[in-house]
């Protein structure tokens, strides 16, 4: 559902899982903020339930997930499932981290809209969001 032009897109950015590698998530959060998005960074060790809670409370249209521990095949789909359970499937989920190519296709099938791996230019993430939310 397109949002009105006056309202900036709100993005909840979260570290799911147990690892504390927050370099990537912080760089991306800053870049998105600089690109004009409203960014809410939840901090570390968020469970899928906590992430969805935050997104609903913050009235976010997008959830950005970061993980470096190898638990992405469990935790990314768990966020999507939690959104389904809470009837909030209009919220777009994307993610990044150390994620092998084969897993990316599988994650997209499970409802993760995009995966950005190390080496992705920040502009590519911003461009993807602009395309997804052209009025933002």
């Amino acid at each position: 559902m397109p949002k009105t032009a006056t309202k900036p897109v709100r993005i909840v950015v979260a570290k799911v899982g147990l690892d504390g590698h927050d370099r990537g998530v912080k760089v991306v959060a800053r870049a998105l903020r600089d690109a004009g998005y409203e960014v809410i960074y939840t901090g570390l060790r968020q469970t899928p339930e906590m992430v969805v809670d935050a997104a609903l409370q913050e009235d976010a249209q997008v959830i950005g997930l970061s993980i470096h521990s190898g638990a992405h095949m469990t935790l990314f789909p768990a966020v999507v499932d939690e959104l389904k359970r809470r009837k909030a499937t209009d919220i777009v989920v994307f993610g990044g981290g150390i994620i092998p190519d084969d897993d990316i296709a599988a994650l997209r099938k499970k409802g993760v809209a995009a995966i950005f791996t190390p080496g992705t230019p920040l502009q590519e993430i911003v461009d993807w969001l602009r395309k997804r939310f052209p009025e933002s």
Partner: protein
Amino acid sequence: MKVRARDAKELWQEEFEKAPVRDDGIETSTISGIPLKPLYTGDDLPRREEELPGQFPYTRGIHPSGYRGRLWTMRQFSGFATAEETNRRYKYLLANGQTGLSVAFDMPTLMGQDSDAPTSRGEVGHCGVAIDSLADMETLFEGIPLGDITTSMTINSPAAILLCMYIAVAEKQGVPASKLGGTLQNDILKEFIAQKEFIFPPAPSMRLVVDSIEYCAAEVPKWNTISISGYHIREAGSTAVQELAFTLADGMAYVDACLERGMHIDDFASRLSFFFDAHIDFFEEIAKFRAARRIWARWMRERYGAQQERSWKLRFHTQTAGVSLTAQQPELNIARTAIEAMAAVLGGTQSLHTNAMDEVLALPTDKAARIALRTQQLLAYETGAANTIDPLGGSYFVEALTDEMERQAEAYFKRIDEIGGVIPAIEAGFFQKEIADAAFRYQNEVEQKRRIMVGVNEFTVDEEEPLEILRMDPGLESQQAERVREVRRRRDQAQATNALNRLRKAAAGNDNLMPYILDAVRAYATEGEIMQAMIEVFGTYTETAVV
């Protein structure tokens, strides 16, 4: 005709200024942003007495014989899936000429949780080996005589527990604790600063660190009780200077904490060890290692009044930079790692881990792990790098850069002091912000192509050939969860409960907790249970997230 030196330099300067320079917009400062001259000469050499290896302040190395006496320890960090599988990998690495072990634990183990905890889902055995109790540790070292090898364990918040497990396995092998050699990372300050695997608040966290240092000084005297780590600070995005300064500042904070406990500096200082990153900017890294030794020696002798020479010597492990590796054209990572490893060797490291080319995608396959180890063997035996001690000592450039690193690190120590010390600076988010700023600055330089990452923002290919990667068995998590439940069923429950109760009571008092933890470990209390007992007394820490 001989031109006088002064005139010759002026002539060079004139010619340099006339010569065309590249205008590709690529930075000529170090990767950390230290501006560099195009040429260094004798004018840049500091005026000081000649420095020599094995002599204070050890800029040129801590051993008078360098690698002629003994090569660095080739210590590949490794661990995945179950204790059984990792035990097989250790035997493989030892059979291939590796000279020390280094344990990588999975996330639940690092965070003090058992494999059957709800928040462990999806994480078990993924980025290291899953260890829940003494039973797993027994399997991990099955057939490996702990009296004959040294082992490094990368673990922090629950470090005391894993050390106790190691001691308990040795007991079962008939090896007394006094014979054990190895290193416990046990560096909680850099967890708050960079890696973020903290559990307890800073004060009880520091108590546990000091407890283990104090205990080992008496009972496990050959053990390196802490590995004060710049690696994670650097990987989180810091500059080389920040890595150097924050790590040494952490080191001094541990020294202060031990002195406060009433220990004598020379009783523990020589068991403190360090761990640095070897990044891709070759000369800057070498200068960093050299500066680290000099700064530490001065502070230990002059500020802390350590009397024994061994207390002044900074010994360190190095790992090549994980963040310099690229998922694109990953075979290039072999070349990057070789260059970084060479910097570590020329910087005089005591031990080294070389990353495998596929570590940017997953844990290494057997083949990738072997190439990484072979890279070190090649450096040691083919290149001649080990033949001459500190071969870059006296280089105009490297000496000037060493001094510059030292100067900038000292400036950071002043700033940290002004904030009130390391822990107040952590609580104020000082380090975290400095690192995040540096990471963001670097990323922007890459985006603007002022820094080139080969295969990423230049020299790319359209179609990548996929690399074969290590996959975990999906059934692993439930097997490991079942294993820990089995341990709980089979142990003497009263013994475990009593040990945990005694630990809880001791945590509320002032006793050294190591003997209590060791008892709980021997009773097959699980890691998660032991942590939980301490959490009930100490509470947990939550970071205010700064972007």
